[in-house]
């Protein structure tokens, strides 16, 4: 009887193990059902080449909106861009008004060339374990996303005034002659995901939605400028109040985005940054404006010399 029970029990266990192997939802033991999925994942990752091996890659057009043209080289003939067109290194792209083109560049990058832009892709290669891509943005705007595909990314975009290098991230960049270089990251970016090298040799690192431009070459200073809310006296425009009512939430950008205001604000921020004082919810007014929040005003309740909350001076008065 006991022997019969043992045989029945072993048969039941064997049947259950067989079912588990067939059912994909059932958690499986290591090295059994997970093997095919692992194989699929391995297939999606491009294989690294030998140490000195170089493979030239291509870009493929995946979306076209409006008037877009490309040519294979500087001396080639412009042709209309179509989906699935293959672009070899050296290709140039130009877009018209209200137009854009999206490309998959090499194995790791997606690149959207926006309206009124001129872009060249001089290099798309895989060298050993490195996916090397070089893009030149002569003018215009571009959105870029560089994925991590299991190999090392060496992706750089050059503009006339700055070069931007990344390892795996997404961002938008502009270059135009009026405002120069600007770049802004997307929210999912990691810390210091983007490195910007300016023409003057200065470097900046961007994380998440950080942005930089010609005037605020440092992400922290640019963010500081963005937090600016009330225009300092002397910088208001006659129709600012009306504009503020019509465009709630966009006051900061427009207020500071004019050349003269930006220059003034930059000097002021640098000054504020030096003294290390910032008001909660806004920037400090400019020195000498008579505002009670002015850190340089002697009647400032926090920083001023006549602040009644400050402890009385001790020791002899300064000479």
């Amino acid at each position, binding site marked *: 009887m006991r022997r019969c029970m043992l045989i029945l029990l072993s048969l039941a266990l064997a049947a259950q193990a067989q079912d588990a192997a067939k059912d994909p939802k059932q958690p499986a033991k290591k090295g059994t059902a997970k093997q095919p999925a692992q194989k699929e994942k391995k297939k999606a990752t491009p294989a690294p080449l030998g140490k000195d091996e170089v493979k030239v890659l291509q870009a493929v057009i995946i979306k076209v909106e409006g*008037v877009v043209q490309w040519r294979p080289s500087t001396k080639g003939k412009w042709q209309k861009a179509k989906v699935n067109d293959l672009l070899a290194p050296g290709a140039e792209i130009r877009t018209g*008004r209200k137009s854009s083109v999206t490309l998959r560049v090499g194995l790791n990058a997606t690149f959207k060339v926006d309206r*009124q832009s001129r872009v060249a892709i001089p290099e798309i290669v895989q060298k050993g374990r490195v996916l090397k891509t070089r893009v030149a943005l002569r003018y215009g705007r571009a*959105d870029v996303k560089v994925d991590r595909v299991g190999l090392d990314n060496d992706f750089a975009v050059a503009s006339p005034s700055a070069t931007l290098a990344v390892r795996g991230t*997404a961002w*938008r960049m502009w270059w*135009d002659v009026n405002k120069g270089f600007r770049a*802004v990251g997307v929210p999912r970016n990691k810390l210091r995901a983007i490195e910007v090298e300016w023409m003057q040799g200065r470097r900046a690192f961007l994380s998440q939605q950080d942005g930089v431009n010609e005037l605020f070459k440092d992400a922290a200073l640019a963010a500081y400028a963005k937090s600016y809310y009330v225009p300092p006296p002397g910088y208001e425009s*006659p129709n600012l109040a009306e504009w503020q009512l019509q465009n709630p939430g966009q006051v900061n950008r*427009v207020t500071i985005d004019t050349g003269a205001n930006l220059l003034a604000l930059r000097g002021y921020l640098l000054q504020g940054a030096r003294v290390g004082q910032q008001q909660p919810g806004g920037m400090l007014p400019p020195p000498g404006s008579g505002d009670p929040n002015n850190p340089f005003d002697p009647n400032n309740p926090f920083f001023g010399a006549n602040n009644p909350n400050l402890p009385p001076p001790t020791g002899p008065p300064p000479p």
Partner: protein
Amino acid sequence: MRSRLGPLLLLLLAVACARTTLKSSVAAEHGGTDEFAELDFWEGISQARLVTNRDALHALLLSVEQAPGGADYAAEVQQARKRGWVREGWNRPANETAQTGLIARAICLEYDIEGGVTMRVLGPRPRYAVRQLTWLGLLPTRGTKEALSGLELIALLSNVEDFATADDTKPEDLE
């Protein structure tokens, strides 16, 4: 001595204040209406050191999606007159450099940029149009009679396009 210097100084002043006239315009070569001609025109403009009246009118007409006059400058001037960009009697040479005020006025009219009190009272005069575009951050600080380079014109028109479509300048997370 003074009597000799006076006319000479006047002559120098007259020469210095005269507007520059270029040998040709980009629109003269790439003024066609097909898409290749249009992109060739923008390509040519991006390399132009100064924008002529003809190029400015051609670029503005393209920007407001009006079929430009092609090889005919007179037709483009006529269109500009009809749209109120220039006065009825305006008839500047095609290859003379365009004034920033003319371009700014046309943009303010086309994109309904009303401006402040003065501009609303007096209308989009070139002087106030330039100031308004500068205040909006679409144009760097410029004098009304200054000329723009080709890249400056492209940047201005691109900024205006973003402004008109309320582009929030947020980067797109591509799929």
